């Protein structure tokens, strides 16, 4: 199942596929409910895919965002779950864009080589999800460094990552002109820090997500990434890339679900004919296909603009919105098409159904995307 024909990326797709083919549905099913895809991440790292976005001078692949998007799409389309991969690919972006020369020199080559994992991104808190600026985890200056106290939730892969990028408040909100001021980003070396407690959270899909407690965690001065107080903006400017990558994962999920469903609908005979001959089966699949194609066009345009250093906030947000809705449409159609078998783990449909549902909610929920479009694209009053 293909969406847009892009012959210039066929090599890249088949390269990714060749690795993914070694990790069939059985591999992913055996990881359920909460085992980290260790072998898969190791293979993709060794072949350089997860370092694609790191510039070549730091040992990475120097890829465009379009290429990174294709990699993640292809992982999802193969039936794999790219969540661990996307984190390793893009969380380093904040360090790359805002880190000091010394930080980049120290961390990026090791991340590129797979010696260090930076897959944890601690932003969300129990009292601060969509409203990021409401976070309460704070970092205070102490001699030679910072002392961190607070709690994060939904910090995915914290147990499988060496480093964590953390957003914390460094100036109390009352003393700031705007709530988005006074936040700072830190790169925490979890192998060395003491006072961090990580508890896994059971979730609907295998995502290795956790809650993380910071109890007088002392980090050195140079854990601060970029400018003190500018953390919110530093994280925001990586969001467009993240939206485009998430959209790509949804497109991959959609391709997987649709391809399986179309094949099944051709072969499964009920009442003397293939179920795909019924409009009741065919139309939801056709509708999902149209949605996926449309989302793909917007995703490619968003990525093209991103790579050309043009503003792409609107396209990136629309891509994530459209793609997550499209993959969900495909997931629902897939369950219906497969009848009772859609619920059987062996078919991988119910697993993808669970996995792809996340993307309407996280990393940003679709309501907030609509709020962004209402305000910025349509000029309506800010609604939140």
């Amino acid at each position, binding site marked *: 199942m293909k969406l847009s024909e892009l012959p210039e990326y*066929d*090599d*890249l797709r*088949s*390269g990714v596929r*060749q*690795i993914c083919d070694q990790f069939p549905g059985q591999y992913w099913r055996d990881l359920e409910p909460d085992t980290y895809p260790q072998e898969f991440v190791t*293979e993709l790292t*060794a*072949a*350089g*895919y997860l*370092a*694609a976005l790191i510039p070549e001078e730091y040992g990475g*692949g*120097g*890829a465009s965002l379009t290429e990174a998007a294709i*990699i993640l799409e292809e992982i999802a389309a193969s039936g794999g779950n790219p969540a661990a991969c996307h984190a390793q690919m893009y969380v380093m972006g904040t360090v790359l864009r805002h880190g000091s020369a010394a930080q980049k020199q120290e961390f990026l080559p090791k991340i590129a080589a797979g010696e260090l994992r930076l897959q944890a991104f601690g932003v969300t808190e129990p009292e601060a999800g969509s409203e990021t600026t409401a976070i309460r985890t704070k970092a205070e200056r102490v001699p030679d460094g910072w002392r961190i106290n607070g709690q994060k939730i939904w910090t995915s892969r914290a147990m499988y990552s060496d480093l964590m990028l953390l957003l914390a408040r460094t100036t109390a909100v009352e003393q700031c002109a705007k709530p988005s001021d006074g936040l700072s980003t830190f790169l925490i070396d979890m192998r060395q820090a003491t006072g961090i407690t990580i508890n896994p959270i059971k979730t609907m899909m295998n995502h290795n997500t956790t809650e993380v407690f910071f109890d007088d965690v002392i980090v050195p001065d140079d854990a601060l990434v970029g400018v003190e107080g500018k953390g919110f903006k530093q994280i925001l400017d990586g969001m467009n890339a993240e939206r485009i990558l998430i959209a790509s994962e949804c497109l991959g999920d959609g391709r997987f679900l649709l391809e399986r469903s179309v094949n099944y609908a051709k072969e499964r005979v009920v009442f003397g004919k293939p179920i795909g001959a019924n409009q009741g089966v065919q139309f939801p699949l056709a509708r999902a296909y149209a949605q996926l194609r449309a989302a793909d066009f917007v995703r490619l345009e968003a990525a093209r603009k991103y790579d050309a250093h043009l503003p792409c906030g609107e396209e990136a947000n629309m891509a994530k919105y459209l793609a997550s809705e499209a993959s969900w449409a495909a997931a629902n159609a897939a369950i219906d098409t497969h009848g009772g078998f859609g619920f059987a783990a062996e078919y991988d449909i119910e697993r993808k159904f669970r996995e792809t549902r996340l993307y309407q909610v996280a990393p940003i929920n679709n309501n907030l995307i609509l709020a962004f479009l209402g305000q910025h694209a349509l000029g309506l009053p800010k609604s939140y």
Partner: protein
Amino acid sequence: MKIAVCVKQVPDTWAEKKLRADDSTLDRESADGVMNELDEYAVEEALRIVEAGEGEVTIVTMGPERASETVRKALSMGADAGVHLVDDALHGSDALATSEALAKVLSGRGFDLILFGSESTDARMSVVPAMVAERLGVAQLTFAQKVTVSGGAITIERATDYGYDTVEAATPAVVSVVEKINEPRYPSFKGIMAAKKKPVETISVADAGIDQSVIGASAAWSAVVDFAVRLPKAAGTVVTDEGDGGVKIAEFLSAQKFI
């Protein structure tokens, strides 16, 4: 050391293969094309030889336009350059014609070692490496499960039913490999990007100086007169053991003339 690796694009091993109704040749459009699996081992071996010493690896293929994908794949694994022989006149060539065409492409380019997979998954004749060696007048070391290069000598372990023979020859030589020889690498992200910039020379039958009269379907030594679609597999016979299972199996085997 200058190494050439001959690779072939074949229909995906898992795809249902079809013959064309018009000329009874393999329908290459109906399935995705992939690099013949054993050729990946040959590419891998060439890369290892060069990495352990020095030299360069050139990929040689004969095939339709889209066989260039297979050349790119080998380049993304790490080979240096490609030569793609593509010409409508080649359509329908048999093994003799293929070996003639490949020999013409290979000769005069100064290769010390020419590697092949020992057979292709679509035709499975296993003769092209030997034919090419014969046409080039160089030694053939076939079915290699291990290759050692030292100076101008090539030593292989030639896989046999009883183990292996050790065979040695001086360069230039043709070597065909079996899958025991190594574990082919995946193309890396950087390899795929770099492959886009590597040179691939596209040549025609005339460019290669190949005699038109010895290639193509008209020159083939065999012709497909007729073909039929394979019958679907019939259900097997289930023998329920009620104390006489062994006897029933023996009766079945003898009825089939196996014993």
